[in-house]
Structure formats: structure tokens, C-alpha cells
């Protein structure tokens, strides 16, 4: 194998000739194609092959029997999902919590990254960065445990502080009132992920050309001017790409674990997301088909949203994913 004659290779990139046929291009790029094979295989096996399981959505699937040996029910599962009186509420919760988490997540992460970029002492900068991203490594069970302890009416720190400051007269049952739930989810997400999310922005900021800052300084720009006119435009492509990618997750409700662990009967109207609804009426009572139907719904919506975001970005002349 090593003794093969080596074809001439052009190291420098060469504009593809129009006349070049498809096959000759394939041959020229064979190494790249060959290298992408494992990934392609991975995607085919783990992302495309299981799609045949979508058949289950049109059946009343009973475990223990083969998929060909099931009762076909047409669109009954979708009808159950969409016509349930709770569905609009569940959809509202999902989207609301997603948007809250998305917007809060972006604003806080970018804000923190900008602030940290202004710190000149590396030691302090590192310290803040480390402390702020540590919660990312805690599992949701622990985080929600901490949150419910902090929000408790009996010696929870939030209620204690608010009482000491005479802002409230008696402890508030934070986790027992639906109207607080979205906010709690948003804030918890921020607390856990803000440090982690800044990493990518800090990296992007680091790649901004320093001469731009110098030029701005010569023009008499202060710190805020420089942030506004140099740093932010510099990381705009990264922001847009991340935004497009996150839009696809909008039907996930900003994570499943948090609503699952923090939610309880009293706040059901605000805490129940599509995933939890499916868990209750699908998995828990043995109706697996409903879960598949909801999965299809979520996938379709995600793909549509992703393309929309991508197209909008394209129209606005921004970076885009596809």
C-alpha cells in the first residue's frame, strides 16, 4: 500500500472547472469523501434508520407484539394529542418557557462575556469564569433540589432575605403558584448555564482583530463605544449561528428535567410541557404510540423553524447554517 505511485496533487486550492464532470470531481475529492464516510454512516444508522419506527404513531402499539402485528388506528394518536383540551396550554407553556430561556440565556451569556472581556486582570477573570460555569456540571436533580430548598417557605434563603428586607410580609410559596413558575425556570436555567454559554462568546471576542480596537481608540471611542461598535459586530456571526441552532429546540421547553423535577400538581397549568404531557399520557399509561406521534410533531415543527430562521438570516445577509 505504501509503495503506490502517488498522483500529482495540487496543494493550492484551485477553482473548480465548469467543464469538470461529476465523477472526476468525486475522484478528485475521494479522500474527503472517504473520510466523511464514518460520520455519514453514523447519521444513517442512528438518525435515519430508526425513522421506520414512526409507523408506531399510526398504530395502537402494544409492546410484546411485533410492529407488523399491531392494530392500525390511522391518525387517532394525533387526534388525541391535538384535540386534548390541555394541548394548547401545554404548547403555550413549552414555547413560553423556551423563549424565556432562549432570550435570557442569550442576553445574560453575551452580557457576561462582554463584562468579563473588560476585566484586565487574568486571575480575577479566570476565577469568575470558573465559578460561573461550575453549576453547569451539576445534574438537574441536584440543581432543582437546591432551587426548591432556596425557595422553601421554611427557612428558604429567598424568602428569608425578602422578609428581612421587608419586601414581603409572609413567605411566598414560590413553587406552589403557577405564575412564578416560568420565571423560576428561566432564572434557574440562567444560573446553571450562563458561565458555560459565555465560553463560546469569549472565544469569539478573542478572535476580534485588535487593530480595530486601536483604530477605535484613535478615533476617540470610550469603553462602551468600543463594545458597541467593535466587539458586538465582531461576534455577530457567532450569535446568529447559535440563534439559528437554538430555534430548532423551541419545542423542548427549555429542557425537560427542570419542569419534571420542579413541577407539581398545583402548578400543572404552567409547568406541563409537551414532553411531560407525553410522558404522562404516553409512556406512563402504556400508550407508546402517542409518544411517537408527539415526536413526529416536534420534529416537523423543528425542521420548519430551523429553515425559517435560516432563510431570515439569509435575507438579512447574515451568516447562516445551511
Amino acid at each position: 500500500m505504501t509503495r503506490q505511485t502517488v498522483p500529482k496533487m495540487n496543494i493550492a486550492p484551485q477553482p473548480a472547472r465548469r467543464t469538470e464532470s461529476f465523477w472526476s470531481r468525486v475522484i478528485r475529492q475521494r479522500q474527503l469523501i472517504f473520510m466523511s464516510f464514518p460520520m455519514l454512516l453514523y447519521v444513517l444508522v442512528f438518525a435515519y434508520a430508526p425513522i421506520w419506527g414512526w409507523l408506531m404513531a399510526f398504530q395502537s402499539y402494544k409492546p410484546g407484539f411485533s410492529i407488523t402485528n399491531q392494530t392500525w388506528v390511522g391518525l387517532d394518536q394525533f387526534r388525541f394529542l391535538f384535540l386534548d383540551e390541555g394541548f394548547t396550554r401545554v404548547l403555550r407553556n413549552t414555547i413560553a418557557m423556551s423563549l424565556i430561556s432562549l432570550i435570557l440565556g442569550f442576553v445574560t451569556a453575551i452580557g457576561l462575556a462582554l463584562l468579563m472581556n473588560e476585566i484586565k486582570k487574568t486571575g480575577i477573570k479566570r476565577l469568575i469564569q470558573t465559578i460561573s460555569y461550575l453549576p453547569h456540571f451539576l445534574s438537574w436533580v441536584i440543581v432543582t433540589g437546591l432551587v426548591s430548598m432556596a425557595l422553601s417557605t421554611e427557612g428558604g434563603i429567598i424568602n428569608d432575605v425578602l422578609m428581612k428586607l421587608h419586601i414581603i410580609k409572609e413567605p411566598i410559596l414560590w413553587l406552589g403558584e403557577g405564575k412564578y413558575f416560568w420565571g423560576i425556570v428561566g432564572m434557574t436555567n440562567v444560573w446553571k448555564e450562563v458561565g458555560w454559554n459565555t465560553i463560546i462568546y469569549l472565544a469569539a471576542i478573542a478572535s476580534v482583530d485588535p487593530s480595530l480596537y486601536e483604530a477605535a481608540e484613535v478615533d476617540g471611542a470610550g469603553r462602551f463605544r468600543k463594545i458597541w461598535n467593535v466587539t458586538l459586530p465582531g461576534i455577530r456571526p457567532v450569535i446568529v449561528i447559535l440563534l439559528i441552532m437554538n430555534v430548532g429546540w423551541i419545542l423542548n421547553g427549555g429542557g425537560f428535567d427542570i419542569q419534571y423535577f420542579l413541577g407539581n400538581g398545583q402548578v400543572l397549568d404552567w409547568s406541563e410541557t409537551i414532553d411531560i404531557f407525553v410522558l404522562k399520557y404516553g409512556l406512563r399509561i402504556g400508550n407508546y404510540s402517542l409518544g411517537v406521534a408527539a415526536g413526529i410533531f416536534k420534529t416537523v415543527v423543528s425542521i420548519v423553524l430551523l429553515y425559517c430562521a435560516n432563510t431570515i438570516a439569509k435575507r438579512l445577509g447574515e451568516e447562516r447554517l445551511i
Partner: protein
Amino acid sequence: MGVRARKTALGLLMLILAFSVVASACSKSSNNESSSTSPSASGSSPAASPSESGSPEATVEPLTISLFTAATGPIPTDDNKIYKEIKEQLGVTLKEEYLVGDIEQKLGVMIAGGDYPDMITANAKLTAAKAVIPLEDLIEQHAPNLKKHYGKVWEQLKDPDDGHIYWMPNYGVYQGDFSSTEYYGPAFFIQKAVLKEFGYPKFKTLDEYFKLIEDYAAKYPEIDGQPTIGFTALAFDWRDWGLRNAPQHLAGHPNDGGVLVDPVTNVATLYSATDTAKPYYKKLNDINAKGLMDKEAFAQNYDQFLAKVSSGRVLGMFEQRWNFGQAHDSLVSQGKFERTYVGFPLVYDMNTTDYYLDRPPINLMNGFGITVNAEDPVKIIKFIDTMLSEKWQKRLSWGEEGVDYLVGDNGLYYRTPEMRTQQEDVTWKQKFKAESLWGYLPKLEGKYPDGNADGAANQPDEFFANLKDIDKEVLSAYDRKTWTEFFSVPPDNRVSYPAWNIDLIEGSPAKVANQKMKDLDFKLLPRAILSKPENFESVWNDYVTQMGKVDTKAYLDRVNEQLKWRVENWTSK
């Protein structure tokens, strides 16, 4: 340059390929390993005949049994003595997995993956998914002890749909008449300290009960430095009775789950969102206005509930005694005897006879089954059969002779005071008892042939000797001998009793309706209870309206159909 680049690329590729091959090979081989251990370890002789029932332990061979229990604990330590003995004497290694989180969900995932252990605790989901194997032939051919044990209730064990036996119920099969001293069922529990404070008053109604709690809480706003909680109730996952079940008992009915069943016509009706239930929740609303209701009751999970009760500052609750057993044990091992509870059978009005205590029905849809993944069901059934032998029953229940109990001159077992204290130590139990396993295994209940009771708690002499001073005081003040005597003597069970263990069938409209009813209860009952008194009516009306929209008929139809089926098939002819 070109050559080297290509070589590196190729090398990298080979590395990736090699790695993926190794990785896949690894995962495969480990699979094989785990599944093949049991046959190869036992390998040679399936010869030892099943008929040697005289010395049953001889029939079980080296074997690893994996099992999942719906219990969350107590989880035995690795060097637990009983498990060690099982391994040494029977050659059986038990690989246990305990529940973390939500049982329905855990099983849902297990079923979706087809990833079952060898033995598993009962659930309707598993039967519906054909995850467990029929046991009747196995029991008939290989398990003489089990056959004898379940002889009387054989027909009731059979699944109403296909007539197979899938589960071996853990409780409810008695040798002779039932007699119990400790009460494990549902009741309105109240701390012994509260009773003592007010000179052991007699009471039967909710008003009297909450009056005691109110007075005590007013007198002692803090217990051990923490605020006193008047009344709590648990509404978490499948443990929903704390919130949902009280009205049926207050109305004088036994525990049928979500329905009231007319004992004569055998027809079930709903009580939630009816006038049967309303006075109870109105009362809870009242006590909430007085600051006695635990505001976090409906936001707590099971662990938080146990921790709260263990702290000794909860004065009262509606619960089933077995459900807070861990908290009771913890209170005892902390020495807070006066903070443990007595159950009272409260009723709406004085003329109603309470029906909290029931004659133990066979505990259907409970206990262990064997899954389709079990390599050698015969060996497993023989193991369970061996565990049902008197020797092992005593080992698991009483303990070890000379260590956990002594034999008196009259042949009756007893414990020394030191032994008794030891039995109350929670950490000791993890090392020397197998309570979770024991809880789900089939049991000889009542009395052993030698006259000893099925466990120390039910041995009359032991029971009395184990009473703390406060217990003796309570019992003598109320002129009772045992905790069960606080309840009326139950009539004979209805043939179709109890309705709560009816299989609603996975994914059926009945099951969906059941889930919806539960969701509504979990959502709106707490809201009704915690609302301002003037808003109670409007929340309640909203609750009734929403309940009206649920397909409760589907649920009732299934329950009634099964009740009828039971009468037809279970009535002794």
C-alpha cells in the same frame, strides 16, 4: 509531502476503524458475558429433582438472579448477612435494583427497551407488555411450597384476561385466622404527644381531631426548634391516597381506591368531586385558614415527606401506616417515641361505622413475577419456593436464633431488650435484615405450625414487651390491647373487594380517564384547600365542572365490569 499526508490520513482512518471495531466487539462481548453466566455457572446438572421438598435448599443451584423492586429502600449494604447466607447456602446471588423516581416511568422505559431483570415486582404494565411469563405450570411442577401456599386463592391469582398467573402476591394468605397487633392500613394519624397533652380524649369526627391539633399547635408553635406542622398529606406519583382517599373512609367505606362500591349491588360509583368528598376538603380549607395545613404538602416528594415526618413536627396526617414506615422507624431510633403516631378511624358523623381496618384480602397485582428475560425460570421459582419454607421465612422475619431472638421454654420466641433496641436501628437493619426483599416475597402469615407468630410484631408477648412507656399509656388510657383495636371489627370482605387493584388496561380510555382524574385532583384539590375560605366554593365548582368533562364513564365501566367478573369467577361454588 503528499505521501505523508495521505499516510497520516490513512493511519488516522485505520485507527478510527480499529477503535470502532474494538468498541463494538467490547459491548457485544460484555453482553454475552452477563447473559451467559447463569447457564455456564450452573451448567452440568439440572438433575436434582424437584420432589425433594423435605430439604428444599438442596434443589437450588449456583445462580445469579437479577431483580428489580418498586421499593426505594431500605437498600441493604454489600456485606448484608442475609444475602450472604442466601449465597452460601443456596448458591444464589441476588443482584438487586431499587426504584429511583417514578415507577410508571421507569417501567415504561424498561418495556420500551425490553430490558428486564430476571424477577420484577408486579405492575399491570408488565403483564400488558407480555414481559412476564405464566407461572401456574412452573408452580405446579417445581414449587410445592408455593402450590400449597396459594392453594386456597389459586383462582383469584389468575389474570382476568387470559387466565394465567403472573404474580405471586406478597400478602394476604393466612394460616388460620388473621390476627394482627400493629395496624398498617389507612387512618387519620395523630402524634401520641398530642393525645397525652389533652389527657387521651375520645374522638370520632374530623372536627374533634382538628380541634386537638389546633390546640396543641397553639400551645407549642415549635417542636425541637422548628415550626410545628399541623397536618400534612402526600400527593406524589402513585402515592396519591393522602390527598384522594380520605372521603371514602370518612363515609364509612373500605379502601376501594377511587370508587365507592355498594356492598349489596356490587356497583361502583365515584366519590371525587361529589358531596361525599366536599366536606373533607372544606375542612382542610378551614384548617389552612388557621395556619395548620402544611402549605408545602402538595409540592413535596416522597423523600421530603419522609424527612418531614421523621423530624417529629407533623402532628397529624391522613396516610397508610406502611407508607411512612421508614419515618416511624427513624423516629423510634431517634428515641422520639411520643412523636410516633396512633391511627384513628374518623367518620363524617357519629352514626357511621368505620371501615378502615379490613380483613386482609389477597394482595393481587403485588409481589414478584418472572420475566421473559430470565434464563432459567425453573431455578428461580425453586429459589422463591425455598424462601417460602418455614426455615427461611423465620430467618427473614424473626432473624437468627440466638442472635435476633431466643426460644423460651414454651417454644415461643422472644427477644431481649437489647435485641429489641437493635431491631429499631435503621443502619443495623441495612446490614442484617433484608426488608425490601422480604416485603415482596410470598409470606406465611398468621402463625407457624409451632405456634409462633409470623413476626415479632405479631407475637403477643413480644408486642407487649416492645411497647414503650408512652405506648402502654396510650393503650391503657383507651382501654385497648393492640393498635388494631382502635378500629371496628371488619365484616367479611365483599367477594369483589378491593376495587383498587383492578387492572384498567394500559392505554385504554379507562386508563386515560384515570390519569385525567388524577391530574385534576392533583391540580385543583390543593388549590381548593389552599385558597382563601371565601374562594373555596368557586374553586370547588370549577373542579366539579372540569371533572364533568372527563370521560369518567369509561373508567367506571371498566371497574364495574371487573367487579362483576370477580363475583362470577371468585364466588366459591
